[in-house]
């Protein structure tokens, strides 16, 4: 089928899945602050000083980032938007557009709280990007490819979570950092009035809701692809397994996140640079040793 039809189908599927994610998340984390907070859809007072171009561009850029990132997630044996050779690298890059969108909107809203949210989002980007890369490198090394379909195919014997538990734990933590859920809530904290979600209303609020729920879905889906074997499974069809694993991983991430205290930006940066990066390097070393001794896929 043509590229346009495929893209439209993918977009519709993603929007529905993002809605499902938002609904599930609100059932799971009842009453928590952060991006799961119900955003006022009735139109908050129009920001008087908002930047004419930057403020509306934010949610659009974030939504584009989410939709582009969904292209490389395999939902079944042939069900992938486009099997890029550098799929996982493309995924990391494209999810940075969500950060860019929050930054644009934070600055463009021109209130002290939203500019504070802009600072915190850049700090969180700096914190999560290197540990996330380290967590992914282990799975890439074992599968010997950056393409998501080949990573899923490499797990047909044994899932990577069994071989790389440290990498999986690292992915849980850095994935939470990437999604701005507990305990890394600072850009959307109630102390700054919810960050950009507190000042958005109307169609930007709807787009933010879609983009942030979709981001959580994508991070969980990529975790399922990398560590839980993607769509592989005994009785049920591929897409069903993929959705089950994605939402199970999402529930695990959110549940584990709630057990920790919310961290301030300085604590989060310290955690990332002093704990997660050394752990990531140890993980790469361990995976390298495993590959050297022949354990893992051929």
């Amino acid at each position, binding site marked *: 089928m043509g590229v346009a039809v495929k893209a439209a189908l993918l977009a519709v599927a993603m929007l529905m899945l993002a809605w499902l994610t938002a609904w599930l998340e609100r059932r799971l984390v009842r009453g928590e602050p952060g991006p799961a907070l119900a955003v006022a859809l009735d139109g908050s007072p129009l920001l008087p*000083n908002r*930047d*004419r*171009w*930057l403020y509306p561009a934010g949610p659009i850029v974030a939504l584009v980032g989410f939709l582009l990132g969904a292209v490389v997630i395999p939902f079944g044996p042939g069900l992938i938007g486009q099997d890029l*050779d*550098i799929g996982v*690298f*493309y995924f*990391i*890059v494209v999810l*940075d*557009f969500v*950060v*860019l969108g929050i*930054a*644009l909107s934070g*600055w463009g809203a*021109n209130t002290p709280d939203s500019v504070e949210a802009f*600072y915190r989002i*850049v700090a969180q*980007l*700096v914190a999560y*990007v290197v540990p996330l890369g380290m967590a992914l490198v282990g799975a890439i090394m074992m599968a010997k490819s*950056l393409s998501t379909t080949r990573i899923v195919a490499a797990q047909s014997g044994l899932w990577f979570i069994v071989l790389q538990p440290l990498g999986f734990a690292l992915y849980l933590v850095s994935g939470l950092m990437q999604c701005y859920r507990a305990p890394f809530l600072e850009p959307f904290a109630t102390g700054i009035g919810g960050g950009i979600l507190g000042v958005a209303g109307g169609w930007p609020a709807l787009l933010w809701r879609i983009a942030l729920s979709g981001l959580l879905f994508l991070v969980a889906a990529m975790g399922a692809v990398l560590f839980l074997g993607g769509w592989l499974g005994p009785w049920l069809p591929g897409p069903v397994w993929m959705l089950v694993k994605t939402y199970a991983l999402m529930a695990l991430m959110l549940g584990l996140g709630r057990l920790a205290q919310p961290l301030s930006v300085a604590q989060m940066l310290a955690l990332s640079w002093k704990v997660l990066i050394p752990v990531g390097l140890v993980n790469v070393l361990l995976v390298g040793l495993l590959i050297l001794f022949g354990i893992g896929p051929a």
Partner: protein
Amino acid sequence: MTAFDIAQIVAFTLCAFIAVAGALGMATTMSMFRSGIFLMASFLGVAGLFILLAADLMGLLQIMMYIGGMLVMILFMVLFMHDPGGAMMAAMPGMMAPVERFFSGGLQQGEGRNGDHADMHAGNGEAKEADRENRQNGANGEHHAQHDGMQHGGSDMSMNMEGTHMDDMDMSMVTPVRRIAAWLAVAIGVGLGALVLLRPSWPTVTRHPDPRSAEAVGMLLMGKYMIAFEGAGFLILLGIVGAVLMARVERHPDNGGRDARVGRTDAPPQIAPDPVIPPSPDERPNEEHASEHHAVAHPPSHRRPA
């Protein structure tokens, strides 16, 4: 002309336009934040050109590095500059050349500093509108009159404040050397373009590169270019350690540079006085901190044999 060719031409034109317009916007807009965003857009355009040239790994690398890099750069600009949002310059449209006014459209104008600028420019107590009109005519006039850019101090209406009021006005986007720089840039661009167009044809080949570039690049990095790879890693380590060391705040009380620290208002911690040489009686300090420290430091020195 197949549809694929047309798509390629359209994609090339779009990406090239974004790259050049982004760089131009970065150079001319009055708002620092927009400058960073324009540069990001320019890098996205160049990344698109890389993908068109079948170097998609390089394109994605560009995007990843420069989104993060430009966001951090914007943070530093917000830290250092007086007017990162461009509000001050947006209130003075007469100072900007037409291309700058185009890229600064829609900026929120800063209200507080309008009065100061009008006074500084006019020199006498004229109305604000008359000042702006004069400045606008003056700026446009000299834009046409000074094509060779010989005397950038020619009209003293809009230029004389550069020297006198640089302390509190951050006119970093409007400098007297703009015209010389613009002509220099045009000269360099025309020169390079002429070199490209008038040179006898390059020995181009028409075969397509292998699409599995990631594997080939990886093999090369670990094989032939291992030294460069390790050297780059070492360089990054040096850069990180150096930057962190430079940005640390010094805490030793003898350090002279400590007084230049921005925003430090309390007195520095006192060094304990020498126990052998008793402090002279006229050295009684006036500040509370010093008296506290001396009060703490005195009892031990009295107990020691003088």
